[in-house]
């Protein structure tokens, strides 16, 4: 009976070790899968950030282009009747010391 009990403990131990091995292997696979997924998502977000950053640069450049005198000058003269003031119309106030 005692001999039988020793045998049972040995098989149980092997089963436990094997089970633990499977669990560890599964956790490693799971961790890698999650890691790869996260990495993929990170790469997508990084690409999105770069794309948005590029878009920001493009829009800022377009705003700068649209605000130049070359672009705006003719329009504001034609539609709004604006003009370059003469130097007599420009008043320079001297700084007063208080």
């Amino acid at each position, binding site marked *: 009976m005692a001999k039988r009990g020793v045998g049972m403990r040995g098989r149980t131990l092997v089963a436990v070790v094997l089970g633990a091995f499977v669990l560890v292997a599964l956790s490693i696979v799971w961790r890698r899968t999650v890691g790869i997924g996260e990495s993929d998502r990170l790469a997508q977000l990084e690409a999105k950030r770069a794309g948005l950053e590029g878009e920001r640069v493009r829009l800022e450049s377009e705003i700068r282009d649209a605000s130049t005198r070359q672009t705006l000058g003719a329009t504001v003269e*034609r539609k709004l009747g604006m003009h370059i003031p003469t130097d007599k119309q420009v008043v320079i106030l001297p700084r007063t010391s208080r």
Partner: protein
Amino acid sequence: MKAPTRVAVVHAFFVLFALALVARAAKVQVVEGNQWVARGKRQHFFASALSAPRGEILDASGNTLVESREMTRVALALPEVRDTAFILRALQRARLDASAVHAAIARRRRWIDLPGLYTASDVASISKLNGVHLTPVLQRVYGNSGGIKRIVGSLDGRGNALDGLELALDSLLRGDSGRVRLARDNNGRPLESPDGWTDEPRPGSTVVLTINNTLQDICERELSIAVDSLKAEGGDIVVMNPHTGEILALASNRVGRTTFGNTAVTEPFEPGSTLKPFIAASLLEHQRARPTDVVSTHNGKLELDGRVITDMHKASALSLADVIRFSSNIGIVQFGQRLTPREKYETFRDLGFGMPLGVPLPAEAAGTLHEPRQWSRQTSASILMGYEIAVTPLQLVTAYSAIANGGELLEPHLVKEVRALNGDVTYRAQTRAVRRVMSGEVARTIQQMLLAVVQQGTATRADLATFEVAGKSGTARRTSTNAGYTAGNYTASFVGLFPGNDPQYVVLVKLDNPKGAHYAGGEIAAPVTQIVLRAALAARDAALDREGLAASERSTIAQAPDHAPAKSAAAAGARFVRARGDATDPVDRASYDPSDNLRPPSPDEGTASYLVDLPASPRPGVVAPIALTPRAIPDVRGMSIREAVRALHSAGFRVRIVTASSSGTLPAAGAMAAPGSLVQLTRPLE
């Protein structure tokens, strides 16, 4: 001996097999372990270059002129593509140019680089497809106009600098690229991995230019309008701070031909009469003449060395000051005979003509200045009139800066600062005098002569009402290919010093081959200078010292209402040829008096008659016209200066502040005056 049982044989076989496996495993793991590990890493990991962000280029006020953005280049590996038709449909859905793919398939190519660069969002839908390879690429974004691009240059599709500052300062802007080790997934796509490493790239430095973006914008617009309206072949405008050598604006325009680099630096021209002040300076410096010395100018026609020299302003005699004022060719040739050829040559050589100035722009031209031993019989006279010598616009402005700053030729510079990533300034331009080319006294005398040119000479159209402008106009004949000097081909130029009594700008306006009745520098280049100066005065930030300007304002106050007819913007071109109230050549030759050339201008002369005042081009229904009926001047007694100015401005008056023993306004409070009139606000002495 008992024969082994069948079971024992089988056991032995398994034991041997197990031993063989262990031995093989030991060999692979222990003996060849490192080799296999390396092979595995090669398969699973790869190193990729990380391009360094290229440095920004800013203007002097910190506005971005050039920056980089990340774009994506798309490539297809056809052997990896399972369904070509599917890929083509996906490319079309993503609005990518698939025509190159069709062509490459027809030619059985294995790798296709799609033309163009795309944003990450453009290519997001195709990024996971087999055979699609995306590579991040940094693209340069050039803001503003094409003029800035002629200064900063450009990059090719691979990010290599081609010209301009991008090329000259490539080592600073480029930075150092880095490397990253990434894992590969089962499809060969890159994958971030904890086992990877990154050698971070070092971004390029930020370069701050001396260019003032506002002034550059003003110059480009006015140059563009002038070139269009005058049907010129092109033109250049250069603005420099004469006290530091900083190039504030560098605009160039060429019609119908592609130019490389900035023509203000790369294309020399024969400057014509704009060189005369330097001969006058040399005469004064060598004590060969005084401003009041008079020579015969032969009533505008002189035969010399087998050719006829003529003057537009025909006079029997002119002083040196008036030779400059009326741009007399005969006069300068007569005076110039007092200098030896070597002295003439050295005058121009010392001003930096005939050699590059060293600004960081590729292909800077040296110009042409021959040594006296190479001169022909006529060169000695030609060079005095600005022929047989070629200078770049930048060289000419640099030389005039010496007149403006009291006689020192400064090294011009275009780069103000270079900043590292952390903001530390690694380079800051210093004002550097190359040499003294004339004494301060001579420089001041020449400035006075140049003031007379604008006030009463050939360039009255550059004049402003409230500030003095000094300058010199030039009109030089141009050569045509294989035809020499041809009739009707001119270079019109004007170099202005603003304000004339304490210059903050030296402005050169040059127009190539204008078509039409007006072609003289004083007639067409001077008005462009005037408009540039007016626009700069009205701009918020145009590199002007307002305190200094306030001190330089003319003390005269216009008494007459300033309501010249409103200018139509549509007739912008006409302003370059519109005649002023007085003639271009206002001197009565019969009453010529050599001593009157330097007399101070009368108040009437100081105020121009070509003003545009509010309201300009009012359009019914768009801008409410301002009532021009007289209104009462408000009472500002007891108010602070600021409040008083605000009250007067609100009432529609312009204000001039003066200091006197009593306070008040002139006209007095309650007096009726037209809106827009100038009211003198007196501030009591402290």
